[in-house]
């Protein structure tokens, strides 16, 4: 079913493109602890790619490697066909990789609108002096970017809280605002770190719908980490399974579900 260079077509008929990001033999150590051990996988354009695994499997570490928060000791990251040199997180972000955090990292003192506007920093390049006097180019930029942000606000149905300081919002809405800020960057890859962690069933359903809609509407490539197996299997096109820092499975949800190593990792077997 997988074609190495050209992509594939999903069961529901969506066309998935070529490889946009490839992780090759990634190894990440913290002192003596090996968080990620020699893992390779790829992310294709337009797909929803999930990374799953039990607690402490190294999923978040992997996401941090992709977004540049951690630098692996070994292995290479290829982005859009080119080897990515070691970069700072903000440089990775400017290349078009946006992310959310497991524990929500928003700017609590700023309004929802301002929070989402920060996501547009990648698209705004008026210099600091133009910004300081806010004329001409800077002003035009502000207005244009504001329009895009308003569209995203509409899309994620958060119009009613546009001016509310983020610190006052309930958990579920904060998660949605964080998604909006990441989307505002119009990313090539959207990384979601446990987008449904700590949510109730209704909120989970909402979030799933938004993730699918985003992928569908904007064709955004999404890589996500999730604990909840049921949610992941419904959402994603392909799944990487990690356990103790190693990759133990990779494939479509059906393939992964029937993989003995995966079943063992989740249900637990005696390690000898």
């Amino acid at each position: 079913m997988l074609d190495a260079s050209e992509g594939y077509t999903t069961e529901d008929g969506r066309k998935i493109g070529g490889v946009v990001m490839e992780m090759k033999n990634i190894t990440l150590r913290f002192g003596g602890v090996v968080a990620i051990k020699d893992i390779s996988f790829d992310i294709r354009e337009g797909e929803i790619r999930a990374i799953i695994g039990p607690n402490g499997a190294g999923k978040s570490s992997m996401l941090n490697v992709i977004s540049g928060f951690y630098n692996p000791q070994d292995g290479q990251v290829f982005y859009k066909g080119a080897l990515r040199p070691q970069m700072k997180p903000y440089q990775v972000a400017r290349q078009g990789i946006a992310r959310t955090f497991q524990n929500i990292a928003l700017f609590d003192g700023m309004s929802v609108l301002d929070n989402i506007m920060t996501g547009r920093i990648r698209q705004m390049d008026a210099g600091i002096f133009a910004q300081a006097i806010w004329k001409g180019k800077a002003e035009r930029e502000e207005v244009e970017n504001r329009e895009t942000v308003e569209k995203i606000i509409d899309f994620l149905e958060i119009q009613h809280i546009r001016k509310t300081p983020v610190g006052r919002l309930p958990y579920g809405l904060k998660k949605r605002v964080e998604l909006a800020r990441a989307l505002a960057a119009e990313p090539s890859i959207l990384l979601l770190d446990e987008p449904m962690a700590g949510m109730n069933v209704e909120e989970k359903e909402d979030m799933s719908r938004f993730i699918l809609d985003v992928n569908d509407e904007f064709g955004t490539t999404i890589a996500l980490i999730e604990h909840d197996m049921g949610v992941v299997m419904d959402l994603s096109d392909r799944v990487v399974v990690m356990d103790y820092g190693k990759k133990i499975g990779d494939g479509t949800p059906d393939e992964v579900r029937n993989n003995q190593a995966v079943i063992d990792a989740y249900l637990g077997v005696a390690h000898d």
Partner: protein
Amino acid sequence: MPEQFVWGMEVFLNGLMAGVLYALVALGFVLIYKASGIFNYAQGVMALFAALTLVGIMEGQVPFSHLINAVLGTEIHHFGWHVPAVLAILFTMAVMVLLAWAVNQFVFRHLVNQEPIILFMATIGLAYFLEGFGDMMWGSDIKNLDVGLPQGINTSIDEFTYQIFDYGFFIDNLDLFATAIAAALVFSLVVFAQYSKQGRAMRAVADDHQAALSVGISLNFIWVMVWSLAGFVALVAGIMWGTKSGVQFSLSLIALKALPVLMLGGFTSIPGAIVGGLIIGVGEKLFEFSFGQMLGGATENWFAYVLALIFLVFRPQGLFGEKIIERV
């Protein structure tokens, strides 16, 4: 109209003007505190350093001339040229940006995520380093600073009040000018912070480092920018104070007067710094005017601090500061 009241009014107006100058220094504190959580003890010394550099450049002084002469046995002190004030101010600003970069590069970049008290100690170290560095670079004699600002009694106010009260108010032109500059500065800083990309990024960095990184904000760039802005405010304060009372090393002590201003206004509020400055300025002048004689004079030395102390008891976050709410 009773004489006392008219005099009181003059004192009040002069207090307002003095308050504006306090507010200018306090503003520099607020900027850095807002964006990086650092209480910058060196803000006053930065104002001194800016004023020293400005005078030095205008007068064509050779920097480090004492050092150069001691090492090389030469006798050079001046280049022998004079730089126009506007140009010299631009050069000085460039020096302040350089200083901002160096401070971030060599000190605060290495102290990310440290305890506030450690950052505070670092700024104390920075203050003394900068004071010594400024001394070494430009010498320690008291200098006159004249960038062509209007000075002396404002005659139209004098005449106007004379016609009404039969008593002419003494209002210094420099103070009037400082007030206008401070107002413009505050207005533009607020607009910049609220409505520009960089300003938004500045607030974002103040709020959450990780999140700021994830949207593509370079922390180092923002920190250098904020220290540069504080350097700019310091330069403005340095020009005003330097013109008023000469560029001398006691200038760095005005930073201490900014502390009660910040207690009143709150450490995180730009308008708060202004209002706090005005209250302190007016308060200490009126207090001295009304009770100074009774209490043996020189109440201006301690009034601001006592006022701040009283304020701390009743409203620790200041007039405009963010309310501290701890969830249990």
